C-alpha cells in the first residue's frame, strides 16, 4: 500500500481541496438543525416572524454553499482519483513490459490482466470514496458530536454508551463475516471451474452424452456456493437492524432524559429537537462508515496485488556497460548450459548443454514433448536466463550484450503463434515498423504467405483480431514466419513453427529459406524427421540433456533414439 502513495502525490492539491470542500458541505449540513432550532425557539416560541423568515433564507443560503462544496469536492476528487488510476496503470504497464518471462510465469498472464484492469479500477474507486465519503462520515460524526456537546453536555453522555457499542458491533460482524467471504470466493471458483470445463470440453460431453451428469456436477457446486452466500449475506444483514436498534434506543433515551432536562434545567424544546437530529446524523454516519469498511478491505486486497507487480523486478536487464555492437555473423556457442525455472529448484530443465552453430549452418533440435527444446532456444534471446554455464554469440557472452541489440539480431518464430489485432501488414511489420510495403511483400513471399494474403479481399490491409477475420493455424504460422524474416535476422530460430502446415507448403518454405537465409545461423525445432535430414547438425534432446548429436548419416549409424524416432514416422519397409 505504501508504494501507491507516491502515485497520489502529484495530485496532492486536489486531494487537499476535495476534503476541504467536503468539510464545507458537511459544515453546512451540520448548521441546518441549529438553524432549525433557532426557528423553533426564537421564531415560533417567541412569535418573531422576521426571525423565521431571515433564518429560513439563511438556511437556503447555507444549502447553496453546501452544494458548491459538494460539487467542488466531486470535481476535485474525480480528477485526483482518475488521474491517479491513469498514472498507476501506465506505470504498471511499463513495469510488465520490463518483465522477464520468469516474472510473467510467476505472476501469470491472466492474473496480470486482472491486476491492470480490475484492481486498478478498484483502487481508483477507493481513492474517490476516500476523498468523498470517508472524509464525510468521520467529519459528520465528529461534527455532530461537537454540536451535541454544545447543546447539552449531559445528554451527550448517552452517546458515550451507544457509540462504543456500535463500534463493538461492527468489529464483531466483520470479524465473523470475513472468513466466510473468502470461503464464498473459493466456492465461486468451484462453480466457475465446472463452467469453464464444460465450455471447453463441450464436444466431449456431447459425444458421450454426459449433459445430465455435468448438470448434476454443476448443480452441486452451485448449491454449495449459494448456501455459503446465504450464510454470509444473512450475517451481514444483521448489521443494519442492530445499528438501527442502538440508534433508536439512543433517541428514546434522549427524549426521556431530554424531557427531564427540559423540566428540571430548562433545556429549550428547540435544542431538544436539534439534539435528536444530531444524534440521528451521528449514527447515520456510523452506518456509512461500516459500509465503507468493506470497501477498504477490498481495496487493500487490490493494493497488495498491484504492489506485488510494482515490487517485482526483472533480473534480466542491461548492465551499464552492455555491448551494442557485438553480434556480427551470428556464431552461437552453448557452453555447459544448465537451466531450472526456479533458481533454487533442483529440477533442471536443461543440463550441461554444449554445442556450436556456425553462420550459414542449420542446427536441428529433435526431441519428445517436454524434453526442453523450446526452453533451450528461449535462452538464446534471453527470454530466460541460463542458470549456469554460458551462451556466447560471436564470442561475447549474451548477458553482456545489449538486450535490444541482441533481440533485433534474432528472428524467433515461436511455437505458439501470436498475432495482434491490426492489419496483416502491421503484423508482419511488427519488428520493424519502418519497413516499406515492398519489403513486407518480400517477407510474405518468402514465408509462402503472399498467395493467401492476396486472395483475401483486402489483401495486406485485412484486419485481424477481435473485429477482424479469422485465419487458419497454418496461415497464422506463415505470417509469424514472415514477421521474423522481415527483421533480416542474423540468427533465425524456428520453434516447431510449421506444424500446422501440410508437408508440401512446409518444404516450399524450407526451399525459400535456404535461398534467403543462406548466410544466417538457423536453429530449427521440429517433430518431423523429414525436416531435419538436411541439417548440418542434429541435436537429440531427451529429458533436458543432449542424448546424441551429429548429422543425419552419423546419427543413423550411432543413435538408437534417432532410429526409433525415425521409424515411428515411417513404415518399416521404407525405412530399411
Amino acid at each position, binding site marked *: 500500500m505504501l508504494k501507491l502513495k507516491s502515485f497520489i502525490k502529484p495530485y496532492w492539491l486536489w486531494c487537499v481541496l476535495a476534503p476541504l470542500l467536503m468539510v464545507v458541505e458537511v459544515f453546512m449540513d451540520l448548521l441546518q438543525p441549529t438553524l432549525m432550532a433557532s426557528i*423553533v425557539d426564537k421564531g*415560533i416560541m417567541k412569535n418573531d416572524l422576521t426571525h423565521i423568515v431571515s433564518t429560513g433564507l439563511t438556511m437556503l443560503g447555507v444549502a447553496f454553499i453546501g452544494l458548491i462544496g459538494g460539487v467542488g469536492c466531486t470535481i476535485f476528487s474525480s480528477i485526483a482519483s482518475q488521474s491517479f488510476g491513469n498514472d498507476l496503470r*501506465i506505470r504498471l504497464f511499463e513495469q510488465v513490459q520490463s518483465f522477464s518471462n520468469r516474472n510473467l510465469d510467476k505472476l501469470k498472464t491472466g492474473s496480470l490482466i486482472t491486476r491492470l484492469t480490475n484492481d486498478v479500477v478498484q483502487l481508483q474507486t477507493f481513492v474517490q470514496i476516500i476523498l468523498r465519503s470517508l472524509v464525510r462520515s468521520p467529519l459528520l460524526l465528529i461534527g455532530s458530536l461537537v454540536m451535541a456537546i454544545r447543546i447539552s453536555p449531559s445528554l451527550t453522555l448517552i452517546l458515550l454508551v451507544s457509540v462504543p457499542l456500535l463500534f463493538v458491533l461492527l468489529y464483531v460482524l466483520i470479524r465473523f463475516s470475513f472468513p466466510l467471504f473468502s470461503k464464498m470466493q473459493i466456492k465461486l471458483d468451484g462453480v*466457475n471451474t465446472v463452467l469453464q470445463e464444460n465450455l471447453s470440453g463441450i464436444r*466431449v460431453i456431447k*459425444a458421450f452424452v454426459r449433459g445430465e451428469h455435468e448438470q448434476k456436477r454443476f448443480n452441486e457446486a452451485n448449491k454449495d456456493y449459494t448456501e455459503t452466500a446465504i450464510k454470509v449475506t444473512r450475517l451481514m444483514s444483521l448489521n443494519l437492524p442492530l445499528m438501527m436498534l442502538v440508534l*433508536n434506543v439512543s433517541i428514546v433515551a434522549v427524549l426521556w432524559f431530554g424531557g427531564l432536562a427540559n423540566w428540571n434545567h430548562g433545556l429549550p424544546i428547540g435544542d431538544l429537537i436539534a439534539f435528536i437530529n444530531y444524534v440521528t446524523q451521528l449514527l447515520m454516519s456510523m452506518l456509512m462508515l461500516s459500509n465503507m469498511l468493506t470497501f477498504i478491505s477490498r481495496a487493500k486486497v487490490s493494493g497488495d496485488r498491484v504492489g506485488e507487480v510494482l515490487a517485482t523486478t526483472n533480473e534480466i536487464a542491461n548492465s551499464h556497460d552492455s555491448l551494442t555492437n557485438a553480434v556480427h555473423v551470428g556464431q552461437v556457442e552453448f557452453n555447459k548450459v544448465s537451466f531450472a525455472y526456479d533458481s533454487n529448484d533442483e529440477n533442471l530443465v536443461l543440463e550441461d548443454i554444449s554445442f556450436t552453430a556456425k553462420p550459414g549452418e542449420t542446427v536441428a533440435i529433435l526431441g519428445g*514433448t517436454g524434453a526442453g527444446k523450446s526452453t533451450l532456444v528461449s535462452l538464446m534471446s534471453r527470454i530466460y536466463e541460463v542458470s549456469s554455464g554460458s551462451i556466447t554469440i560471436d564470442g561475447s557472452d549474451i548477458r553482456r550484450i545489449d538486450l535490444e541489440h541482441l533481440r533485433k539480431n534474432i528472428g524467433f518464430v515461436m511455437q505458439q503463434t501470436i498475432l495482434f489485432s491490426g492489419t496483416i501488414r502491421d503484423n508482419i511489420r511488427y519488428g520493424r515498423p519502418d519497413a516499406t510495403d515492398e519489403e513486407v511483400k518480400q517477407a510474405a513471399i518468402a514465408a509462402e504467405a503472399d498467395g493467401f494474403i492476396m486472395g483475401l479481399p483486402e489483401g495486406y490491409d485485412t484486419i485481424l483480431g477481435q473485429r477482424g477475420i479469422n485465419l487458419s493455424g*497454418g496461415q497464422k504460422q506463415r505470417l509469424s514466419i514472415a514477421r521474423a524474416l522481415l527483421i533480416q535476422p542474423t540468427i533465425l530460430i524456428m520453434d516447431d513453427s510449421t506444424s500446422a502446415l501440410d508437408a508440401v507448403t512446409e518444404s516450399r518454405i524450407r526451399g525459400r529459406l535456404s535461398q534467403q537465409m543462406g548466410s544466417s545461423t538457423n536453429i530449427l525445432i521440429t517433430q518431423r524427421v523429414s525436416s531435419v535430414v538436411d541439417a548440418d547438425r542434429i541435436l537429440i534432446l531427451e529429458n533436458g540433456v543432449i542424448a546424441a548429436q551429429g548429422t543425419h548419416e552419423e546419427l543413423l549409424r550411432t543413435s538408437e533414439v534417432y532410429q526409433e524416432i525415425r521409424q515411428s514416422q515411417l513404415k518399416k519397409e521404407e525405412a530399411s
Partner: protein
Amino acid sequence: MSSPHNRTSAQVPGPPGAFGRGHGGGGPAVPIVRAKNRSATIRRIWAYLNRQRGGLIVVYIFTVLNAVLSLVAPFLLGKGIDVAVIPREYNLLVRFSLLLLGIYGLSSLVAWVQAYVMTAVSQNTVLELRRDLFAKYQELSVQFFDTHARGELMSRATNDIENVSNTLNQSVTQLLNSLITLSGSLVIMLTLNVPLTVVALLTIPLVLVSSRKIAGLSRVYFKDQQRHLGELNGFIEETISGQKVVKQYVREGIETERFRGISHKLNKVGIKAQIVSGLVGPVMNLINNLGFAIIAGTGGWMAYHGLATVGIIVSFLNYSKQFGRPISELANQYNLIQSAIAGAERVFEVLDLPSEYESAEEKETECPSLTGKVDFRDVSFSYKADSPILNGVTFQAMPGEKVAIVGPTGSGKTTIVNLLTRFYEGTDGSITIDGFDIRKLNKRGLRSQIGMVLQDAHVFSGTIRENIRFGRLEATDKEVEKAARLANAADFIARLPHGYDTMLETEGSNLSHGQRQLLTIARAILADPAILILDEATSSVDTRTEMQIQQAMKTLMQGRTSFVIAHRLSTIQDADRILVIQSGRIVEQGPHEQLLKLHGVYHELYVSQFERAV
C-alpha cells in the same frame, strides 16, 4: 477470474443470426448498458422471483410492516414532545418512551427477518437462473460454441448473473420499501397538515427533472467511458498475452506509448463521467435542504399564526426527510438497476436460443443398436450460401472398417465428423447409419454409439477413475481398470502417488499431454461405441509418445467403424479407405497403395513427407 479467452488471434467470426457479441471489453466497472427491452426483461426476472413465492410473501409482509413502523415512530416522537414534554406530563412521557422502545425494537426485528428471508429468495432465484443457463448451455449445439467466444459465454454466467444477484439482494426490498415509505409519508403528511404537504411536494418536480437530466448525461459519458475501457482492456489483454513476442521484437517502448495514448483518452472521459455521476449526491442534498428550509420557514410562519403546533412541525420535518430519501436513493441506484437489467437480458438471450434436442424438424425415433455402416450421399454443408465448407461428399464405410480423412487445414475434414455426430446441422444430401437417416435418429442415442478422441485430450477436474468412468457412468472399478490397461494407461497411473484416485488439476495440468490422451482413449474403450472418431488424436504429441498411443488406438479400433483424421500420413497407411479432401470435396479415395499409383494429391502429400527421410 474468467476471461483470458478472448485471445485476439483465435476469434471466430460471428455466425449468422442468434445473438451478437454484446458489450465489448467486459470492463470491471459497472457497465452502463441499456437494456433493449426493459419491461419484458423485468417481467421475466419477476417470474423467476415468483418461484420463491412463500418467501416472497413473507418479505412483502415484513417490508410493509417495517415501512409502517418506520413511519409511525417519528409520528409518536413528535407527539411525545407535544403532549408529554411541553405540558410536562411525566406519566405520558413514561408511556411514550416505552411505546417508542417497543416499536423500535419490533422495527429492527422485522427488518432483520425481512433481510433474512430475502437473502434466501434472491440467492435461490440466482441459483435457478444460473442452473437454467447451465442447462441451456448443455443443450446448445456444438456449432454454437464453435462460433461464440468462450470468454463471452463465461461472462454471461458469471458477471451478468452476479450483476443480477447484487441488485436483487439490495434493490428489490429497497424499491418496495421506498415505495411504501414514499406513499406512507405522503399520507401522514397530509393528515398532519395539508398546506405544508403541498409546500413539501414543491421540490418533487425539481428532484425528478434534475435526476433525469443527470442520469441522462451520465449515461452518455459512462457509455463513452465503457467503450474506452473496453479498448484499454482489450489492449492490455492482447499485449500481455503476447508478451514474449513483444519482447522478442523489442516493442516495449512502442507498446507503452500506445498504451499511454489509450489510457489518457480513457482518463479524460473517466473524469467527466465521474464528475457528472457524482453530481447526483450534492444536487439531491441541495434539494433536500431546500425543502427542509422551505418547510421550516413555512411551518414557522404557520405556527406563528397559530395554524400548526410545534410538535406537528417537528414530525412533519422528519417525514419530509423520509419523503426525500427514497427518491434520491432511487436516483443513486439507477445505474446499478440498469446494468442488472442489461445483464439479465443477456442471460435471457441465451435461454431463448433453441435447444438442439428439441429443434428437430422431423420426428426422431429412438436409436437402435448400430453396427456402424456409414453412408454419406452427396452431402453439402455451408454456413453462408456462397461459401460451401463441404460440397457433394459421397463415401461409404462398412462395419469395422478404418476410414482415414486427409487433406490440408481448413479443407473440411472436421466438418465431416461434425455432421456425422450431428454437432452441425443443416446439410444437403443424406447421411445414413445402418440405413437409418441420422436426422431421424434421437441425437442422444446416436451420440452414445459414437466414441471420440480429440486432439486437445480434454479431461475434467476430478480423479483419474472419474475421468475414465466418464465413458460409462455405471462401469465398475474393475471395468475402469481394464479399460486403462487396454489403453496402455495402467502403467503411468500405477506410478502416480494415489493411483486411480489421483486428483487431476484444472485442464489436467498435472499430466503430460500424452498421458491425458491415453486417458481419453481409455474412456472411449469403456464407452464401447460402434463408431469411433479420432480427430488429430496424436498430432500434439511427439512421435515416440505417439507410438504408445498408436498401440492403444489399435486396440480401441478393433471391431468398430473408425474415422481417423491425421496430419501424419504414417499413422493412416493401413486404413481400409483413405479420403483425400480438398476445398470441401473428396478429390481421391481408396486404399494407400491405390492412391499412390494415381500420382495425384495424395502422392504429392506422401512424397513431401517421406522422400527426404528415406
